[in-house]
């Protein structure tokens, strides 16, 4: 009797699991599927689930065309610059915060944390106007600077967490030996926290790579990849949307996987995003 009940419980559990897993995979599968399906197969009242009429047309069109080069270069460049800026501001700040008295550090961290809660639709316009005054509209550096708004809090959280794990005795010992705070930072702290820094760097890169709202306001000539997808969505091109969506997703998924072991709660707390 008890074994019977156990069996039912297992089946229910397995079913729930299957449901959740298919819910996770299904949208991604459909995206890839549409990108390699012929229009006749998808554009009907009863689309098929399996790829019955495979066609490389959409991929060929995208990869051989000129259209993708601009957005791809721009997205790569902006993500890289905003990563550099983020680290440039974030590393010193995070080190500073982690060495302040607990209360101050806490306040600083909360303050940064709040900045990422402000509605993006509310900040984007004033920033666009400001950028124009500074002649930053439509430049890679301008967009990257805006992306830092979104990226910095996450990077700071990760970095502060990293610096806190470095035993304070090590630093104190070095200071007793006569090293200045600056030297301690350069020689001891930074090398020891390379792991955390690279995680922060990659997250910064990712968060800029898939950013949409600021790009919408700050791009004029060359769209980024997410904007290009939006362009195809607004033009009603299902297949190009799916193809571009797959292209933009691939590096992100690969990176996320390779970072899996770093995806601990401490890091992700700040990385929670909508």
């Amino acid at each position, binding site marked *: 009797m008890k074994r019977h009940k156990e069996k039912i419980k297992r089946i229910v*559990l397995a079913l729930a*699991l299957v449901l*959740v897993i298919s*819910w996770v995979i*299904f*949208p991604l599968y*459909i*995206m890839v599927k549409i990108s390699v399906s012929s229009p006749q197969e998808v554009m*009907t*009242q*009863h*689309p098929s*689930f399996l790829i019955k009429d495979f066609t490389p047309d959409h991929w060929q069109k995208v990869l051989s065309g000129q259209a993708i080069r601009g957005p791809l270069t721009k997205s790569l460049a902006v993500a890289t610059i905003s990563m550099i800026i983020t680290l440039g*501001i*974030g590393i*010193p*700040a995070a*080190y*500073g915060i982690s*060495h302040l*008295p607990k209360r101050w550090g*806490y306040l600083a*961290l909360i303050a940064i944390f709040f*900045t990422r*809660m*402000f*509605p993006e*639709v*509310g*900040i984007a*316009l*004033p920033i666009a106007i*400001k950028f124009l005054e500074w002649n930053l509209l439509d430049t890679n550096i301008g967009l990257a*600077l805006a992306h830092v*708004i979104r990226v910095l809090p996450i990077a*700071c959280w990760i970095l*502060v967490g990293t610096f806190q794990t470095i035993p304070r005795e090590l630093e104190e010992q070095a200071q007793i030996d006569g090293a200045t*705070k600056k030297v301690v930072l350069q020689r001891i702290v930074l090398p020891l926290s390379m792991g955390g820094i690279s995680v922060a760097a990659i997250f910064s890169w*990712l968060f800029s790579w*898939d950013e*949409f709202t600021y790009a919408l306001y700050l791009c004029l000539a060359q769209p980024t990849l997410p904007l290009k*997808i939006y362009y195809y*969505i607004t033009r009603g091109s299902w297949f190009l*949307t*799916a193809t571009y*969506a797959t292209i933009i*997703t691939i590096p992100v*998924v690969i*990176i*996320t*996987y390779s970072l*899996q072991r770093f*995806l*601990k*709660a*401490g890091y992700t*707390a700040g990385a*929670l*995003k*909508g």
Partner: protein
Amino acid sequence: MRRAANFKDYRFELLLILPLALYVIGFTLGPIIYAILLSFQEQFTNNFSLKNYYQIFSHFQFKNALINTFAITILSLILELCVGLFLAVLLTRRFIGKGLLRALMLLPLGVPTIVSAANMRYIFDSQGYLNEFLSRLHLINLPIDWTGGGGLSIFTLALADAWKVTPLVMLILIAGLETIPLDLFEAARVDGASFWQAFRRITLPLLKPFITIPLIVRGIDAFRLFELPLTLVGSSTPVLSTYTYFEYFQYNNPYTAAASAVILLIMIIISATIYLKISRERKSIYNL
């Protein structure tokens, strides 16, 4: 006097923080203040007035937007927590294929929001894949209008949002579960407690702080949901952020747009204050 000395002690650290502070003031606080000022300006005359607020509060869509925003937030939080908890509990146990499952569950994490929005369109379209799936199972005869407004659309949005965010909630809950000492469960088992009893008496109470954090942080994010409602349901189910967008993009009125952005901001600040209160009760927020 003691304070001043303190500042001096930390001159180097404060200097390091300075660029960050400047950046935040210039790129976040500045724009926000500008938006707030805008919301109190009258169109054309630039006089100070409350007209914009009066205008949006008397607008029939704004009330819908407000209600929808709350409804979506609550619904998606419930979904994310339930599924997240289920998966977290599962993933802290040992079984074959656990690594694979964990890897699969983390998949949506990396998917850009605009991509997930595009994908959800394929799924929830009236001729989309979900309806096709249901009709092949003979569960429905006529296509369901998932995104046409009303309660169903709110459910759809919550589901679409949960797709992307549940893995994060799951990760935090796993971290929480890992802090619970295993011998507690051992002891419970020795005492003859069932899995459910142990879950209710041990897991849930100890996990409480780990639940409140994603609850509030995710709540704030759900308030701001933008790409999903924009591409999925449009004006049939307005939320605060899309209402702001429509006021500005469709009707070119930055003033009422700013006003509704400020309302959103107030809601967020209230939630953030609650978050602050709760997390202050605990010693360290860094390590969760």
